[in-house]
Structure formats: C-alpha cells, structure tokens
C-alpha cells in the first residue's frame, strides 16, 4: 500500500555530514520532496520532507532513521493556529502555496487543514494578528 507523509527530521551534529536521505532512496525505494532544510549555528540539521513509498518500505525507512539517531515528528504538529488570536479575516488564504486554508462558504470562517501544510512559514508573517505559530 502506497503512503505519503510530511515529516520533520532533526539531525544531531554527528549526522549532519552523513548522506542519510540518500539511503532512504537507495535502500528503501522511497521518493522524497524537500520542503525545507536548514542547519543551525549549533550544527543541528532540520529537514522537512514529503516522503512517499510502500507502507512496508516506509516503515523500514523510518526505523532506519530512528536507529541512526534522527528525531522524527509529523509536520502538522509544527505549524499551528493560536485559536484565541485568529480573527478569521482571511489574509492567509491566498498566501498559502499549499491551499491549507479555506473559507467555509456559509460562515466565512477560515478552516486550517494542517495535513496540507508544507511548513513553508509564509502564513506566519502574513497573518495580521500573528495567530499562526511555527515550532521548528
């Protein structure tokens, strides 16, 4: 069964120079799309990936990452909406390249579909009350 998931990978310093993602392709036949990548001054690597493949290989690939010492988290936990600050204006709707925000036609309330979020962060500064939060 094919799966496709967006995940956040955190690489400790000792792994930054190792070709980890290459192994996912070569050994587990997984397809990846890099949504975001950065290395902090403390040399911790952060990689946001969309990872596709067969469920079995996907699970084995994730197991390989965990064993290698990579911390893994689902992307949807990383971009959140502070519901108390959101005013449901709609400033985010056309800014989001992934279409993760939509307007509920009857009430005009803004729905945030976090499973569509690619973690680009464009909504963070576009939001006038700064209700969108990123926790990378």
């Amino acid at each position, binding site marked *: 069964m094919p799966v496709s998931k967006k995940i956040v990978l955190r690489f400790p310093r000792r792994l930054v120079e190792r070709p980890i993602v290459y192994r996912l392709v070569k050994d587990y036949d997984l397809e990846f799309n890099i949504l975001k990548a950065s290395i902090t001054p403390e040399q911790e690597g952060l990689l946001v990936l969309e990872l596709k493949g067969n469920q079995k290989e996907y699970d084995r690939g994730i197991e390989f990452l965990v064993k290698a010492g990579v911390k893994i988290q689902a992307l949807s936990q990383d971009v959140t909406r502070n519901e108390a*600050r959101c*005013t*449901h*204006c*709609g*400033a*985010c*709707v*056309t*800014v989001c390249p992934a279409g993760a925000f939509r*307007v509920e036609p009857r*009430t*005009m*309330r803004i729905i945030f579909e976090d499973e569509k979020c690619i973690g680009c962060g464009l909504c963070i*500064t*576009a939001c*006038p*009350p*700064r209700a969108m939060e990123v926790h990378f």
Partner: protein
Amino acid sequence: MAKTIEEINQKIKKGQAVVFTAEEIIDVVREKGLKQAAREVDVVTTGTFGIMCSSGAYFNIGHTRPRIKLGGGHAYLNDVPAYTGLAAADLFLGANALPDDDPRNRIHPGEFIYGGGHVIEELVAGKDVRLVAAAYGTDCYPRKRLETWLNIKDLNEAVLFNVRNAYQNYNVAVNTSEKTIYTYMGILKPRLGNANYSSAGQLSPLFNDPYYQTIGIGTRIFLGGGVGYVAWQGTQHNPAVPRTDKGIPKEGAGTLAVIGDLKQMSPRWLVGTSVVGYGCSLTVGIGVPIPILDEEILAYTTVTDADILAPVIDYSDAFPQLKPDRLGEVSYAELKSGKIKVKGKDVPTASRSSYPLAVEIAAIIKGWLAEGRFELTRAVAPLPGAESDVKCKPLNERPIEESDL
C-alpha cells in the same frame, strides 16, 4: 407609520424591541415585504471588524510627586513612543507608532511585530505597561525622569479615539507588476496573483445607512467590545462619490471618527496588528444599531453583497502614484465567492476584514438591546452628506523656495 427613537427606546427598556442583524433583515423583508416589516422591526444592527489604522488612545496617567511635565518631553510605553505635545500628565498613543529601534523595512519586508496597536491591546487586556519618560524640568514641574509600570485600572482616563474608522466601501487591491509587493492591503502576488478586499459588505455600518440618515455625531455604538460614540465624521470623509441606483457609494466614501472609554473595552475586539512590509496597526470592532424609523431607512438596510460594488486598484502603480486608474468594478458577492475576473483573468480573493466577527458584533448589539442594556441615540448633528461640499482632496504641494524664508 413612522416611529420615533423615543418609542423604540421605550420598547428596548421593556425588552420588547424587535431587532434583526443587517444580514437577517434581508430575508425578513423579502418574506414580509417592506411595509409590514417597517411596522414590525425596530432596529437593525450592523458590524465590522477590520484593520483600522487611524486609531489611537489618550491617557491621563495622574501626577507624580514631585511633579513631572511630560508635555514637550519624551515618553515611551513598552518602548513605543507616545505623543507628548499635550499637558503634564496626558499622552496620546497612535496605533502605527513603532519603537525607535524597530528595524522597520531595513530588511524588506519588515515584520513589524510590536507597535502602538499592540500596546493598546495589552493595556485593554489589563497587562502592566512600562512607561519611560524624560522631561526638561520647570520650577513648578521639577522632575526630569520617570520609569514606572502603568495599569489601565490606575489611569485617570484611558480613551480610545480613532480619527478614521469604519470606511464606507474600500478598494480591492491587486498587483500587476512582476514582483510580490507588501502593502497595507496584504501581500499581493505578481501578475494579478491575488486580490484582497476589506469590508464586511452587507453588514458594514455605513452601507446600511448610505446617506447617513440615522448615523451622525453623537450616535452611540459598539466600540472595541464596549460602548462608544461617533465623535465626528472621520478624516478623509468623502460623501460625494459616484453611487449606484440604490445610493451605495462605488468607492471609499464616508468615514467615522469614534471615541469611547477604553477601560470597558476588550482585547478580543481591539487586536494589535502586524502588517508585513507596512507597519503596525490596530484591528477594531465597531457596530452601529440603526433605528428603523420609516420604510426608506429599512429599505437601505436590506442592501446585499450583490448590490455593493468596489473598485479594483493596482497597488503596484495606480495606488502609490495616486493615479485615478481602475481595473474594473466587482461586487462583494463576487469577492466572497473566492475569485473575481480582472483583465480576463481569474484572480483568487481574500478578505482583510473578518466577516465572522462582524456577524458576532451585530449579534452582540442585538443581545444588548434585548437585555435593555443599550439605548439608541438621536444624532446631535448630521455627518456631511452626499450633497455637501465636503471632499477628500489630495495635498496641494507647494515647493518652499529659498526666497520664501
């Protein structure tokens, strides 16, 4: 038969007033007809919740011992400069004010995380705010420095005073250039990538009383979660613009200056706002109840989003260069559908003002009226109308020559 405001207030006091929101009234009149509805309905409530930049607040902080004269000195509230051109203990804080060390647009687009609007929100929320002030010292006001926490509950007065709010209609902003631009109407993507608008449309106060028959100076309103008043016409009030057959202005027209006691307001309805690449501001909730005195006044409140047209303006050229060019006209019904057509292209739309919270404001006023907590007022003077000679003019710039000095 015409009603009076006094008769409506009697019904409000007894809890018998018949009130609908400007959204609900559309179907009520469709079902009952104008004549019957005008007899039965007493009040229609409106609301709008959007970024309203010409907002601010003034405070009297109380005198210090020994006295300090802030007037003519410098004062900062949470590092945001406040205006000290008033007397010893009075300060005015504008929503757009920024800390001196804010990077602004030095790295474009600036984020504008904290400014005057945010200070107002924190004060209203009951949070302590840091005042740092310096003065020059006089015989009667000898003190020169002041650093203290302030809390809204300790201030003598804390008054929201917004010189231009509740715009009657507004531009639809687009960008025809080749690069993304960062405007007060939001992020505008190149080559007509998106279109942003900012009005509650059929719920917005001045669309429901387009000729200012009931809304005038002295009108009691919902302001920032508390009770406020219309103080004057807002700055740039421009009533004599082209209108539709139903009297609805086809571009930005009337505005309101509003005032109210900040101490009874709420941070839910006064939200500090960051406009990327542009600056800081305040998002303000305003609602105005309209007394249904006759059929004509009621008929105006039945305005729908399909009746209201807004001009599409290019914010990469026409707006900054103050050119009159327009790319067309669209209705709020089209804007709310999620896309409009501009120069033959489908352009996705987004709102800058919150329709859901505008709906909530209209419902809150309805609740206040039902509980008898809010009475309607007769305006003490009208706002300048469509036939007046009041006009919003551009600046007549006159270069200063050496010989003038």
